[in-house]
């Protein structure tokens, strides 16, 4: 069916994004909590998450100096932080509510039970003793939700838009994480680039993207910055690698053109070609690890361009591209803007 409303297509896209975003954040906090335990300088390891989501300024304005407790609350239970887990779950549910007439009841039920369970986390759910468990439960709810989605959603064009949101968010999260973590390696000397490094650091990074076991299978015994980065970016069999997401995005967008005859898909494919090109150049770049920041910047910019094309051709967002900031200055700012749903709602 191609009489899918543009508004629904956009909600499906954001529904996918928020499901993935919630899962990523929950997994990250779960791993970070476990890792943080028993460290003498525990407090210092949390503020990098603010870097990850470009939240330092916003956080400082409302909460002052970052402490583990404050950062945890900011990302788990703070409703005023649109990037928190509770806000993401709520946004996910509001999108699902919009979509209720087209998504399976089982899926809505899953979303709704999830939302009701974590709408108001109690302080004890955020305590040192329970936080890891709480995040794990949230992550599992997200997996369950994706499972229900895979098992029940009717595979018409609606499915494509759900996947697009999910994949773009996944690639974006991976890129951000690589950017911040490898900057830490450089700045804080967690590990010598290319050297054996801090075993724990790489382990945490891999676990926080659910890639630890896969990495060890692919690279028995080895754990250095270059191979970890390349694994997370280029491994075609890792479901969270950027290459994997990019390939899937191509498949899904091709489907829009081939199966549903949607001409706008051609424009989106052109932007995906840009992503592909960046990846093709990077894979052969011996200095990739030192230029990781500009690589990630480019990837994130290209993903934004993909989203913008989707908005223009399928979600009914205005006409041709409006004047944007120069790419240099745009950077993080435009990135965080396009990563937030701006869908207007009637009252």
């Amino acid at each position, binding site marked *: 069916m191609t009489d899918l409303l*543009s508004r629904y297509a956009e909600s499906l896209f954001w529904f996918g994004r928020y499901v993935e975003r919630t899962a990523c954040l929950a997994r990250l906090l779960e791993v970070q909590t476990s890792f943080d335990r028993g460290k003498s300088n525990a407090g210092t390891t949390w503020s990098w998450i603010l870097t990850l989501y470009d939240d330092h300024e916003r956080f400082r304005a409302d909460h002052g100096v970052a402490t583990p407790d404050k950062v945890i609350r900011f990302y788990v239970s703070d409703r005023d932080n649109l990037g928190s887990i509770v806000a993401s779950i709520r946004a996910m549910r509001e999108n699902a509510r919009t979509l209720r007439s087209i998504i399976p009841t089982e899926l809505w039920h899953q979303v709704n039970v999830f939302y009701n369970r974590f709408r108001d986390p109690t302080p004890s759910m955020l305590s040192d003793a329970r936080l890891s468990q709480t995040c794990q439960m949230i992550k599992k709810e997200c997996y369950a939700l994706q499972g229900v989605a895979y098992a029940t959603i009717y595979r018409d064009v609606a499915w494509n838009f759900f996947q697009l949101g999910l994949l773009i968010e996944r690639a974006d999260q991976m890129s951000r994480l690589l950017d911040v973590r490898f900057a830490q390696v450089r700045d804080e000397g967690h590990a010598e680039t290319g050297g054996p490094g801090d075993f724990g650091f790489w382990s945490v990074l891999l676990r926080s993207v659910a890639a630890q076991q896969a990495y060890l299978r692919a690279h028995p015994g080895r754990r250095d910055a270059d191979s970890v980065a390349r694994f997370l970016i280029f491994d075609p069999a890792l479901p969270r690698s950027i290459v994997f997401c990019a390939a899937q995005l191509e498949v899904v967008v091709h489907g829009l053109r081939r199966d549903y005859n949607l001409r706008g898909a051609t424009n989106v494919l052109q932007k995906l070609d840009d992503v592909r090109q960046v990846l093709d150049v990077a894979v052969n770049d011996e200095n990739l690890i030192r230029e990781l920041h500009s690589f990630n910047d480019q990837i994130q910019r290209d993903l934004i361009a993909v989203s913008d094309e989707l908005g223009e051709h399928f979600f009914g967002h205005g006409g041709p591209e409006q004047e944007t900031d120069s790419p240099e200055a745009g950077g993080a700012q435009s990135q965080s803007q396009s990563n937030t749903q701006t869908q207007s709602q009637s009252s």
Partner: protein
Amino acid sequence: MTAKPLSTYDQNGFYCEMLGLPVTAQAKLPELWERLLSYDAEELEARASEATGELLDLGITFTVYSERDAIDRILPFDIIPRVLSAADWQHIEKGVIQRVTALNLLLEDLYSDQKILKDGVIPRELVVGNANFRADLIGYRPPCGTFVHVAGVDLIRDDKGTFLVLEDNARTPSGVSYVVENRHLMQRAFPDLLAGFSVRSVSEYGERLHEKLCEVAPRDGDDPTVVLLSPGVFNSAYFEHIFLAREMGIPLVEGRDLSIEDDCVFMHTVAGPKRVDVIYRRIDDDFLDPDVFNPDSVLGVRGLVRAVLAGNVTLANAIGTGVADDKAVYAYMPRVVKYYLGEDAILPNVETHICREPDALAYTLDNLDKLVVKPVGASGGYGIVIGPKASKEELERCAEQLKAAPEDYISQPMVNLSVSPTLTSDGVAPCHVDLRPFAVTGRETWVLPGGLTRVAMRRGSIIVNSSQGGGTKDTWVLEDGAPVAESPEADAP
């Protein structure tokens, strides 16, 4: 511990939907009554709380939004069903079809020749002076002559068990989703209660509605595009809009999803604009089209009324039906039925005094403490004065308002609404109920077996409106030939 709440149930002198007249008080469906008697309080409570949990999990809720929060409320559901015999239902069905037929004939006439006004059956000023009468639509005839595609006719039952029409809802009546969901809930939470009874299905509503809406499409063709137009997620009936769109398999659209080109309606899809033929709208007339009605409305579509008048799209229900379900016009419905159909009304009205008529006003003022006074044109349970329950001050205030603007009021005798056993916070009590059957009309009218039973869950209250704390029950229409009343087993000890 083992107290059986139903065993001490007392119908309190009212007609009971389960036991009939108080003098005979015999279970209409003895096997059901026996089953209900066997449950202890804990069991009933457990089933009830399961059902409530299910409503929340499924999001069968209306949502109250505040700045920071979205609070989901459920419409309270009572697990003890209300039962209608096959004979009761045949009577109701015939009566509702007759009533809806008359409403459509009335509207067709009012928006064309106005014969009924010329013949003096209804006072002209009652119609032309009515805020819901849209004079600019005179001359518009919708496909099949159907104005009211979806009607909810509110029925009550008096102390003799006679069904009476309390009011007609011919604009955008809501509640049908609860009819269907209540049954599904019952099947999950209380399957052992339902087992073995032949209860008529309510699941086909969406299919029937879709079929009727296709019948009134403006263009010939096999596959008209039907959409449901909702005000959006913030509307308290949003769940029902979802439900109906889902059951019919049609897009749930908002005003911003539609636009008009060359007096045709298009919806914005991922493949571009797509022509729309029929709009089942759940938005009031006033918000449909800022060009014609409320200019500030952002819920509707600019130019929609022109598209309707050009015959390029059909609205269900049509614009301007509010004049027919007005409480003042209601009083004339028995005469309207007679006028167009040459028949007596199968379902009589509650006796109604039209206060704009001097005799009726005098009678009302003299008997204020015995009557229910209702404002005309308002909806919901607000503003109603129930004479026998009102204080002296309230009655005085009411009399003043009546004298100041008699045309704004009607009065009716206090009807002793029937009761049905209902699980309340203090055990099983006889709570007052009404019934809203739903009728859908394209070329012809079909009535969903049963309807929404609303129950006043506050002890003694007779206002069943959900905005006043009312709840709902599953409504069982028994198949013909199913065991009904006076079965010998009923006397078994």
